[in-house]
Structures are given as structure tokens and as C-alpha cells.
């Protein structure tokens, strides 16, 4: 429902943006609506992957379920892994729903898309943001302050990631800053695969960035989560929201 309303809103907004205006800032053969649809879809999916585990932890704390969960015979890492799976799957489904609604409501056709390249890039992006989500969940255990970080990342992705406008529109320092964030590469990669039919070979740079980011963040996230659990056991804050 939420996705449908969001897509419909941007369908009307897109009528204010002529294709020629967008073309000044980069390749945009299909017009503004497909451009913004893919930006919104990727942003929504990445934020679902990013926030899912923290929200799940907060819900478990609110229900008092975190302690019973950790008393199970599974290792905390396994609990963490399985708790992360739903947000990741949800992110993938959100992405597909965005594209489906865009096709139904806005008639977006992706006939020239390179679907395997888009799927690989999107999956890597979701895993990369899921791993960042593990780190923010660990911070919420350690300092009860994971949520401000989520807001910061979410806001940065809107500003820098090229969700609503092409990045060349940004001043040069912000363009440089945007290159430091994985969502920039994820959105550009999926957009190129779906709108321009870019192949896996064409997308090697964003794929490498997203893979490298995941390889660093997953072990870091698990380590931070274990430190968070240990500290919560010392401080007695395991059940605090």
C-alpha cells in the first residue's frame, strides 16, 4: 500500500520534469519516472535491509523476548543471522514490488534491461546494507543509539545517493562524498543495468565496491554484536529498550 502510494506520487511529480531537463545531467532516454522509480526502489530496499535487524531487536526487547531467545541452544551469531534473513528477504520483495507497481501504474517497460546484472547488483547492495544493519544493531545494544545512525544513513542516501536526481547535479565536494557511500554505487549500478542494459562487465566497479564493503562489514558487524552482548551482560542492559 505504502509503496503503491509512493510510486503514484512520483508518477505525478515526474510529469513536471521533462526528459530534456534530465538529459542535461546524464543519459535518460526513458524519462524521469523510470529514473526515480529505480532510485526509490533501491533506496527502499536498502533501507529495509539496513533497519530491519535493529527494528527486530527493538521489538524483541519490547516483548521481552531477547533474553529467552539468547537462552536457546543456538549460538547468538546464529540468532543474529536468522534474525537478519527476514529483513533481507523483505528488502528483495520491496524492490520487486516497486518495479511491479511502476510497471502497472506508470507503464515502465524494462525490455532492454540486463536482468542478471541488475539482480546481482541489487542482491549485493541488499547484503551490504544488511551487514551495515548488523553494525547499527550492535550499536543499539552497546549504546542504545542505533536509531540516530540509521536516520543519518537514510538521510545521506536521499541527499547523496542519486535517488531523486542525477548526481552530476550535486556540487563537486558532495559528488566526492557520495562516492564514499555504497548506496551511490548500488543505485547507479542497478539503474544502469535496468535502463541502459549494462552488463556485469560494465558494472564491475560497483560490484567490487559492494562486495568489498560486505566482506568488511559482515565480520565487523558480528564482532560488534558479540561485544555488544558481552557489555550488555556486564551492565545489565540486555532487556533495556
Amino acid at each position, binding site marked *: 500500500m505504502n509503496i503503491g502510494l509512493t510510486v503514484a506520487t512520483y508518477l505525478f511529480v515526474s510529469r513536471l520534469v521533462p526528459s530534456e531537463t534530465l538529459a542535461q545531467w546524464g543519459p535518460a532516454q526513458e524519462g524521469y519516472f523510470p529514473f526515480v522509480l529505480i532510485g526509490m526502489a533501491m533506496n527502499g530496499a536498502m533501507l529495509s535491509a539496513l533497519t530491519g535487524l535493529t527494528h527486530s531487536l527493538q521489538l524483541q526487547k519490547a*516483548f*521481552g*523476548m531477547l*533474553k*529467552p*531467545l*539468547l*537462552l*536457546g*541452544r*543456538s*549460538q547468538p551469531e546464529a*540468532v543474529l543471522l536468522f534474525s537478519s534473513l527476514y529483513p533481507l528477504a523483505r528488502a528483495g520483495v520491496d524492490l520487486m514490488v516497486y518495479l511491479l507497481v511502476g510497471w502497472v501504474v506508470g507503464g515502465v517497460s524494462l525490455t532492454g534491461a540486463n536482468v542478471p546484472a541488475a539482480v546481482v547488483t541489487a542482491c549485493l547492495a541488499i547484503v551490504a546494507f544488511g551487514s551495515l544493519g548488523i553494525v547499527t544493531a550492535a550499536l543499539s545494544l552497546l*549504546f542504545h543509539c542505533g536509531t540516530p545512525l540509521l536516520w543519518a544513513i537514510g538521510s545521506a542516501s536521499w541527499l547523496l545517493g542519486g535517488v531523486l536526481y542525477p548526481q552530476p547535479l550535486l556540487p563537486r565536494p558532495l559528488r566526492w562524498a557520495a562516492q564514499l557511500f555504497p548506496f551511490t554505487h548500488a543505485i547507479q549500478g542497478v539503474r544502469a543495468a535496468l535502463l541502459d542494459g549494462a552488463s556485469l562487465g560494465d558494472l564491475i566497479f560497483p560490484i567490487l565496491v559492494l562486495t568489498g564493503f560486505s566482506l568488511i562489514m559482515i565480520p565487523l558487524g558480528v564482532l560488534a554484536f558479540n561485544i555488544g552482548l*558481552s557489555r550488555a*551482560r*556486564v*551492565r*545489565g542492559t*540486555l532487556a533495556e529498550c
Partner: protein
Amino acid sequence: MTLSAISVANLTKTFPGSVRVMSFRPARPPRIEVLRGIDLEVPRGEVFGLLGPNGSGKTTLLEILATHLLPTNGHAKVNGHDVVRDAPAVRHAIGYCPGGAVGFDPRLTGKRNLEFFALLGDLPRVQARERVTEVWELVGLDGFRDNTVVHYSDGMRQRLALARALLTDPPVLLLDEPTRGLDPEASALWRRFLRERAVEELGKTILLVTHDLLEAEDICDRAAIMQRGRIVADGPPSELLRAARPGRSPRARAAVGVG
């Protein structure tokens, strides 16, 4: 194989004060000493009561034995396993009912909650369903299988919490105020259930936190009274109760933490 189901030696727990990150005048926060040198032995098959006023450290001790908290100093073993060095084995050996019988997803039925925790306890799916049915009947929740937990009364939640604690058939049960919120009749039924079914029939060892010395007398073989993080008296509940009666000498009453 040790004789004691629970063994605690010189256990202390000090909580670090919470650091205020955004403070302009960062000061070293005061530390809170909650347990001060607790020694305790609970033999197998015994019901042991922990009594004392709020803030005396009863729940903290239980949480350390349940591996939710790390002790500051000293040692604690459950079923022969150290709670720090061998925490996974301790978790296998215990069933824990937290105070207020919390820890269920209120949107799911009681049965679905138990199935979830049975799977988490490494029971295969078929065995998990069978075990849920067994403990469901054992704690007397028949007829409420399809109700979501949000509609359960306090008593039903307590039963559900005990059912969860019994799912993996652990030898030791840690119960934090299991009769809190129950009416006197339900409390009596509950105590009889713990004594007759859990201890005499199933052979469990129970460490029970309660505020009520009469309840301890009814169900416990032995009890300890805690005050300000220390055990100030221990023995059979009837003796503790006798010493606590009005009219006894102030010294005798002080020894069991009253008067």
C-alpha cells in the same frame, strides 16, 4: 558428576554507573554493588527459595545463573557447568521463567510461541510439536491452544512461561516470582503443581525467587533471605518463619531480615 545442582562461591556483582556521553561535565558515575560475596549450595531435587525485599539482589543472582549477566567476581556453577566459561552448557541445563512471565510474542498463540522456542532449543520439528503438546497438558493450559498470548491472563502467562522452561526437559528450573499477580487460590494450585509434578514426578531442582515467606514454607525445602546483596539467613523456611514472628527477640528477627 557434582552433588549440587547449583553452586555459588563468593559471588559479587557490581554494575558500572551509566556514562553520560553528552554531558558537559563528565564525572565518574557511581558503581552499584548489587551482590556482595554470595555463597550457596542447592542439592539436586531440592526446591530452594530466595527471599528478600526489592533491590536485595535476588533477581540479579538468578540472572547470573541464567547467563544473562556476567558476575564481577566469584564463581557460579549450574549442573556442574561454570556460568561464565561454559555458558552454552548452562543454558542447556536450565529452564528460566523471568519475573512477570514476559518474553512471548503477543501476536502469536501460546502454542505457536512454544513451538518457536522448541525449535530454538534444537528440537526437530516433529519432536518439537510432540513436546509442546506434552508440556501444554502438563501445565494445564488445555483449551487455550488457539488464543493469542495478548488475551492470556497473568496465571495463563505464568503457566506458559513454565511450559517454555520445561520444553527441553532441563534438570534445573530458575523461577522469578512465579506466583506474582496470581490470586491466593491460583497461587496454591501453582505451588502444588511445582512441588508434586515438577519436583517429585519430574525430579527437577528449583531455585525460586519470592517475596513471600509463607509461600517459601509451603513449597521450599530450604530458603535464604537476602538483604543488600548478602545472604543474611538460611535454613528450612519453617525455622526462618518462626524466627520472623512478632514477639521474637529483635536479634532473632533481625537475623532473618525483619524487624
